[in-house]
């Protein structure tokens, strides 16, 4: 119809859509799903890294990790705010997470087993996230694109910190280097899966690209990530766990081995090492915080009432 055509014309023209603008229901729904999934990923993503804050091996590393996890909470908050501009409440979003209706990135269903995992998450997981998110800084929905600009700036900082952590391990003892190698082996394939299924199997993509909600395809992004990351692994002196990985001079890209999509789908379905624990941790935090939120609300109400009363008097 005419509205939709005008809407698409604005997007094609490179204009931003704002919260008060008319938008097709599908656009709104897709954005809510995508933004809230992203927000949930930030919040759930605090858990695997949070697991090592109390055990960070130096005070400086402890402060860096703590600041990073704090940034993730901040990202979660911007993103919930961006989603709220589309007419869903934070309560609703949180409830969707806790009941399993909403998803979060499967990568956070893997455990952090050693200190090197903190480095691997920064380097690979934040690295993949940035790769996914940089195009979104140009996405058509204003509040989302602005949130992404802020998020990306901090994420690239996190990525460097993660790499620096691994660099210290790789220049350290044999045990430390083995720890780093083990982390790369466990996180490499899950990181590649973060870009989603192969383009051939990907749903929603064409429409999302037309709406400029998705700007590059899964496979394009994955290739960019591999091309960027492999030399970094070499510099660390670590071996990427892929026998088929090699530079293809013809393509000007790295060829890499087949991804085990059955694992991806299993984890997505709930059968990853930590799916249940992650959700349970969030649910418990929320349930145990219920009385705190109720108290804060009751206090605010009382004082708002007192305020009205004194203004009326």
């Amino acid at each position, binding site marked *: 119809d005419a509205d939709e055509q005008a809407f698409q014309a604005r997007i094609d023209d490179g204009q931003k859509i704002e919260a008060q603008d008319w938008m097709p229901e599908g656009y709104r729904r897709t954005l809510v799903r995508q933004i809230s999934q992203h927000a949930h990923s930030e919040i759930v993503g605090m858990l695997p890294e949070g697991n090592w804050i109390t055990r960070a091996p130096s005070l400086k590393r402890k402060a860096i990790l703590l600041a990073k996890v*704090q940034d993730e909470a901040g990202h979660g908050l911007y993103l919930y705010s961006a989603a709220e501009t589309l007419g869903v409440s934070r309560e609703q979003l949180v409830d969707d997470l806790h009941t399993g209706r909403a998803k979060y990135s499967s990568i956070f269903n893997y455990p952090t087993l050693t200190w090197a995992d903190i480095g691997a998450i920064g380097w690979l997981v934040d690295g993949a996230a940035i790769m996914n998110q940089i195009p979104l800084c140009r996405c058509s929905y204003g509040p989302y694109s602005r949130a992404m600009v802020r998020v990306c700036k901090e994420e690239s900082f996190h990525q460097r910190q993660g790499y620096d952590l691994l660099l210290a391990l790789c220049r350290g003892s044999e045990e430390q280097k083995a720890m780093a190698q083990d982390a790369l082996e466990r996180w490499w394939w899950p990181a590649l899966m973060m870009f989603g299924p192969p383009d051939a199997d990907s749903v929603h993509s064409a429409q999302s690209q037309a709406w400029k909600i998705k700007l590059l395809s899964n496979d394009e992004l994955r290739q960019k990530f591999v091309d960027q990351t492999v030399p970094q692994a070499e510099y660390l002196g670590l071996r990427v766990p892929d026998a088929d990985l090699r530079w293809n001079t013809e393509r000007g890209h790295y060829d890499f081995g087949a991804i085990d999509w059955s694992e991806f789908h299993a984890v997505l379905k709930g059968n990853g090492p930590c799916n249940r624990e992650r959700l349970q941790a969030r649910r418990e935090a929320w349930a145990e*915080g219920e009385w705190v939120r109720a108290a804060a609300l009751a206090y605010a109400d009382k004082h708002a009432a007192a305020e009205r009363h004194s203004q009326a008097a």
Partner: protein
Amino acid sequence: MNDARFECLLRLGDNALVLAQRLCAWIGHGPVMEEDMAQANVALDLIGQARLWLAYAGELEGRGRDEDALAYGRDAGAFRNVLLVEQPNGDYAQTIARQFLFDAWHHAELSALTASSDARIAAIAAKALKEVSYHLERSSDWMLRLGDGTAESHARLQAALERLWMYSGELFDADAHDATLVEQGIVPAPQSLRAGWLQQVGAVCTAATLTMPDADAWMQHGGRQGRHSEHLGYLLAEMQFLPRAYPGVQW
């Protein structure tokens, strides 16, 4: 002389470090996301302060121990924090009550330390004081919200206050080290902060509809001399695991 100053710096550094370690356990598990951010903020400030105090302590000691050697290489008996900060997180009320009782003292202590005759202590205190002003504002605010919130939150906070109260007296203890340093104008007399602290805590309790426990109640002692509660050993076992399991390497 340096012995007393070394002790005093450990006390300041260990208070900050141990409390920060406790707060770290909340991150990702708080009642609202804004609180995860706020707790992380306070913990970050405290870790930063701990680093400054412990680094200075290590330099004064002159035995080559840096901030990490002191944080990760001492067993519980060599820690000098007050018992209050090592108490378990408990529920949010207990975490907030612990923070408030500490912040009110910490703010007064740092204010006095900005006039220390040791210029480096004065400078660290001045930096920390700005941060701790915010901590105290925040914990006071939560005392009000929980104390004057719902019946449940009031009961929880009152219980937390009563549970932790016996650890507050130690903040004002003085020993021979304190006497030496007070004389040299390096630290304030611990006891001199007590009246102001009681007044401030009392005022917040009143505003929060809480009953402040008896100022003259029996108090626990010993943390500042290295006699801790049974909790500290567990906290350190977790915190120090990596440097102890992989000694002598860089991270």
